[in-house]
């Protein structure tokens, strides 16, 4: 691609987790400077000297254009053109509050968080819009397992925003010969897709644990997608978005990968372990656990039918066993095979 504004741009990535690191490497191919903001000073120092992230995606060699820093002052020493939030959902608001004074309004912001703010049910882009002096905000979401992207395997993602400015930035900064970027204006649909799929990943782990076959899994994916669409439409999303990478695509990847945390929660729960045991063993957050409860409650109050979500919630809650849940779902009254 010929040189343009973005080839000379500066990108700041907040969050040195696996996806943040992978995005930094992609961005470095397309801009002049990438600053990766990580939590600890020694992690930053190690990354700058060994050119590797000591904690995540260890086989990935960092591009020479990447500079790791641990302070916001350093990250925003010079004006950024694009800021990426690659942080877990529970940190979104708190981090945004800290970052706010460093931004000036002309920056574009894209977040890579799949989740929501629990108590308010707000999408991450809404949280960022409330906390940052920035208007042009978008999200990046899709079936993007960090390890595979790091190895250069073919993959694709969706960048969503109401603003073409953000879509163009996403396209220019993240596209590489092995990574395709699709774009959409339906930010609502893309964000809800990334949030809701975690519920079905838990269910998928349960099916796997029960040794069930492809019929059952396909049933889960199709009817799970129908629930995602119903909920998404109630929230103002375009139903077609859920057929894309951020909906169906991400659902398949998350529900099929035994590496997914949510999948593992479901897997162990179905083995009869208690939720607290599973979670402490996992040592990490599984977003789907909390999402299932919140979504179930909200869907019920709004009369959106989400039977699988309800069953996942009841099993997590300890009210039902997996077999009871399955039986409940299979004996529901027959309905038409449609989405809404």
């Amino acid at each position, binding site marked *: 691609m010929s040189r343009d504004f973005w080839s000379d741009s500066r990108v700041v990535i907040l969050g040195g987790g696996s996806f943040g690191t992978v995005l930094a490497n992609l961005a470095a191919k397309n801009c002049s400077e990438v600053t990766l903001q990580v939590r600890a000073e020694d992690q930053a120092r190690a990354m700058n000297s060994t050119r590797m992230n000591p904690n995540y995606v260890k086989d990935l060699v960092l591009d020479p254009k990447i500079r790791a820093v641990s302070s916001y002052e350093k990250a925003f020493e010079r004006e950024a053109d694009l800021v990426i939030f690659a942080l877990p959902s529970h940190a979104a608001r708190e981090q945004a509050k800290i970052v*706010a*004074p460093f931004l*000036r*309004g*002309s920056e574009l912001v894209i977040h890579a968080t799949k989740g929501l703010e629990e108590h308010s049910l707000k999408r991450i882009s809404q949280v960022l819009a*409330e906390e940052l*002096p920035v*208007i042009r905000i978008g999200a990046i979401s899709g079936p993007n397992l960090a390890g595979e992207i790091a190895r250069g395997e073919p993959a694709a993602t969706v960048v969503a925003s109401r*603003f073409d400015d953000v879509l163009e930035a996403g396209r220019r900064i993240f596209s590489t010969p092995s990574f395709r970027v699709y774009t959409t204006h339906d930010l609502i649909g893309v964000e809800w897709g990334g949030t809701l799929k975690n519920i079905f990943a838990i269910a998928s782990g349960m099916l796997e644990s029960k040794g069930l076959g492809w019929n059952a899994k396909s049933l889960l994916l199709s009817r799970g997608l129908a629930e995602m669409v119903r909920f998404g439409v109630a929230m*103002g999303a375009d139903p077609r978005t859920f057929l894309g990478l951020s909906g169906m695509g991400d659902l398949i990847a998350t529900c099929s990968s035994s590496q997914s945390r949510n999948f593992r929660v479901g897997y162990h729960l179905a083995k009869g372990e208690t939720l607290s045991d599973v979670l402490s063993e996992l040592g990490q957050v599984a977003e789907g656990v909390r999402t299932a409860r919140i979504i179930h409650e909200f869907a019920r109050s709004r009369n959106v039918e989400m039977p699988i979500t309800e069953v996942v919630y009841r099993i997590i809650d300890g009210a039902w066993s997996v077999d009871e849940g399955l039986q409940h779902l299979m004996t529901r009254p027959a309905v038409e095979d449609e989405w809404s």
Partner: protein
Amino acid sequence: MKIDPRTGSNPAVRFEHHPAVRGEIYRLGGKPYRESVIEEVIGRTMSDFAGADPRMLLEETIYQERIRTRKVRAGWITSPYLAQRNHRDRKFLAEVGSRMKSCIGLEDHRALLERVSDHFATEICGNFEPAMYDFAIRMVPWMFSWLLNAASVQRFLPFGMSESLQSRLRVVGEVEHLQKLAKKGTILLVPTHLSNIDSLLVGYSIHLMSLPPFAYGAGLNLFSNPLLSFSMSRLGAYTVDRQKSSSLYKGALKNYSTSILKRGIHSIFFPAGGRVRSGAIESHLKLGLLGTALQAQLERYRENHPNPNLYVVPMVMNYPFVFEAASLIEDYLAASGKHRFTPNDGGEAVPFLNTMKFFWKIFSTRSEMWVRIGKPLDVFGNFVDENGISLGPNDTTIDPRRFFMTKGEIRAVPQRDREYTSMLGQRVSERYHAENVVLSSHLVAYSLFSALRKQYPALDLFRFLTLSRAQRAIPGERFYEEAEACFRMVKAAADQGRLFLSTPLHCGDVKIWVEDGVRQLGLFHDAKVVKIEDGAFSTEDMSLLYYYRNRLTGYGFGCDFAGETDEQGFLV
């Protein structure tokens, strides 16, 4: 320019009077200046449509105009003024039609298109005559005070005690803030729109606040009164003909607004595009004119004006009764398909007597009109401080120029600017709700409606509105119970800054505010909106009750019908 602290809370805010400040609008009085505005509008319109086929555009315009003039012939003319205008329009249309036939090539069509743009621009453009303005600002208060004191006689005021209009017209809110900003930049005042008298009150409130005159987009029906028409067209009002729907006309109208805002002329327009039919606070604004604020702001930044900032100031008006309420709610119900009969009135003229009757009722019954100046915003919907600096979240300050920067430069990006405009529209509507002043009459209507609704929860709106007289009564005890519950809800919302309460509601004594509300509610109408008979509360007109009650929808207070619940976009 400060508010007298002694009268800060009661009976009304009084302002120190200053000689009218000469604003940029005075230049509109000069013919060369006006011509340069028209020229600019034509230039903008031609460049807007530079990519379009001029012939197709002409054909579309002629087609739309033909439909419109035909409709007018079918009975829309309610005054000699409208008849004269219609005659002029038809003559012009005939001329364009015949010139169309002799057009040979692209250039001919383009020239004719320019001629049509010129026609529209000239028709829209307002004039300003300082002498007329000086006359009006002396005349109007005099008329008001004459009317007020004549009406007050009915209440036997003690000798020597006379009332001033200001005690009935309560202009509250960010008045000083607005006064300061008017000196630092260009103001775009965006009032809510309930009634045709809004225009009068907005104009008068501007004068009360010692602000320079504003340019104002006035609907044709206001021009139908010869007196109003004569004065308004000389006071910077520009003409908005809502019946003209061709894209060329709409383009010219937007370009006129952009041009005067860009030149720093303070402006007013009603962003809902007309009076709100349902009686609710506007939740869907027309974005066309609002977008001109953004465009003008962008251009002022690009051209490095010394005082480049544009401030959008919401303004919410509330009256205990609206004289067109019956026809408005009828329109609304007919349009939303919830009612069976078709209303028979169209764009009604302002009957001068009705206007007088309105003020007579206000003055003779101790009713109050509330005008609340909302917190000023920049064109992106951020609050601005007293110095005109935009405030962001988390104590940040913002240079709005930055939002216009794409790829490192301030530039126009149509897709981006459309999104900004729609966000601004949403923001203004949000502010309208927050700046709304709840009157006791609103709350009485809301309480009665809510109590009735609870008795017939299963009925749809249409069935509900056609309840029989006997079914519409609520025992006093039950009514007061509901009224107290509604009050608690509204009070909680006020404490959270989601709305304001008018003075009678400050006391919180249910008997007092209910009495006050019942007395004032819908005084103008022949039917009693809320009636107390043998201790029971009822209504003689369900549609009117619905209309007045609607002022409190959009807050998620419940008791809403399907399709009404998401006005604040909670789900989006």
